[in-house]
């Protein structure tokens, strides 16, 4: 006769996660996540992924920690900024402290430098970027390789999450207009001491960052668990000052080159 032991559940790291009936923990554990950006959103996304049971993560970033990152980046410390450590390496190191079982690999460089053949090897891509050009790059490669892409963006107390599931949903490019292309290469960063030209600094706070990242990861878990009924259908806009979340519909742009490929 099988006997249970009092307190047994408290020794199982994933016992509470497994109580979420719809969550496919095995799928989460076996999936490969590509996180693009190890800044404010990237810190939160990696934290949430690791605490949600993700074991295979690739993290891409080319920057170093500066002191003004410390108001919103959970994994960065004073010593990291003093030593100007690479963000990706710091995040990976601290993520392993959260869960020693996580296999987190770092790519120190630009997302544009990732080999073309690497995109299709991931189950999911989470975008934690700061500029339109890099987003378009990720959008193109994920759509072409039919990899789900969950993009997050913040500005002060405003946030946005877009879930792109090729080939069924509109892609990121479908929602762009001239105002995006005017700032194509502008990095909406909020820090940086190696400035060689004027770059506008953007207001950023952890409350907005944490919420946007949490939604990104929750949507990723839903996609992997087959909860297509409850995934953000297009774009979620958040206004932290007015306490509003709005899920807005976006139609596919018939002139978008990615969908013209669909049509053959």
């Amino acid at each position, binding site marked *: 006769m099988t006997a249970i032991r009092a307190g047994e559940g408290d020794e199982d790291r994933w016992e509470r996660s497994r109580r979420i009936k719809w969550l496919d923990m095995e799928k989460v554990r076996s999936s490969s996540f590509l996180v693009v*950006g190890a*800044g*404010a*959103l*990237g810190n939160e996304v990696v934290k949430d992924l690791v605490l949600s049971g993700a074991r295979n993560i690739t993290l891409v*970033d*080319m*920057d*170093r920690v*500066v002191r*003004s*990152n410390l108001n919103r*980046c959970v994994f960065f410390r004073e010593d990291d900024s003093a030593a100007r450590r690479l*963000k990706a390496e710091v995040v990976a190191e601290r993520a392993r402290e959260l869960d020693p079982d996580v296999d987190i690999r770092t790519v120190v460089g*630009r997302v544009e430098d990732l080999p073309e053949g690497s995109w299709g090897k991931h189950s999911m891509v989470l975008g*934690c*970027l*700061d*500029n*339109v050009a890099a*987003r378009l790059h990720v959008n193109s490669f994920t759509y072409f390789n039919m990899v789900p892409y969950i993009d997050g*963006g*913040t*500005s002060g107390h*405003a*946030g*946005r999450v877009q879930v792109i599931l090729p080939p069924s949903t509109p892609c990121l490019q*479908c*929602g*762009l*207009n*001239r*105002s*995006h292309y005017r*700032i194509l290469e*502008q*990095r*909406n*960063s*909020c*820090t*940086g001491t*190696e*400035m*060689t*030209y004027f*770059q*506008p600094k*953007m207001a*950023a706070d952890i409350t907005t*960052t944490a919420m*946007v990242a949490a939604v990104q990861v929750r949507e990723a878990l839903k996609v992997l668990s087959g909860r297509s009924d409850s995934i953000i259908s297009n*774009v979620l806009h958040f*206004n932290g000052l007015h306490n509003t979340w*709005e899920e*807005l*519909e*976006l*139609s596919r*742009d018939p002139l978008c080159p990615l969908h013209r490929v669909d049509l053959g």
Partner: protein
Amino acid sequence: MPFRVKVRNAESGSTVDMELEQENTVEEIIEGAAGYWEKDAGAYVIRRGKKLLRGQQTVSEAGIQNNDELELIPDPEGGFSGPPY
């Protein structure tokens, strides 16, 4: 035949009436409203009800009608925190 819509600034809640022709584009509405409120350079989108309107659509294609209320929303592109390339 020109007609009027109301454009709301999602950040401030203020509104402005805008006169449109059927061949105007959504991008022109964005630029007109962003210019009126002297918005910083950045990405913006326009919503009509629950729909985000694509920039290249004309007023006619987007189904915008007399007395409609549109909203100008910032489209956040931040999330990172490093120095430029």
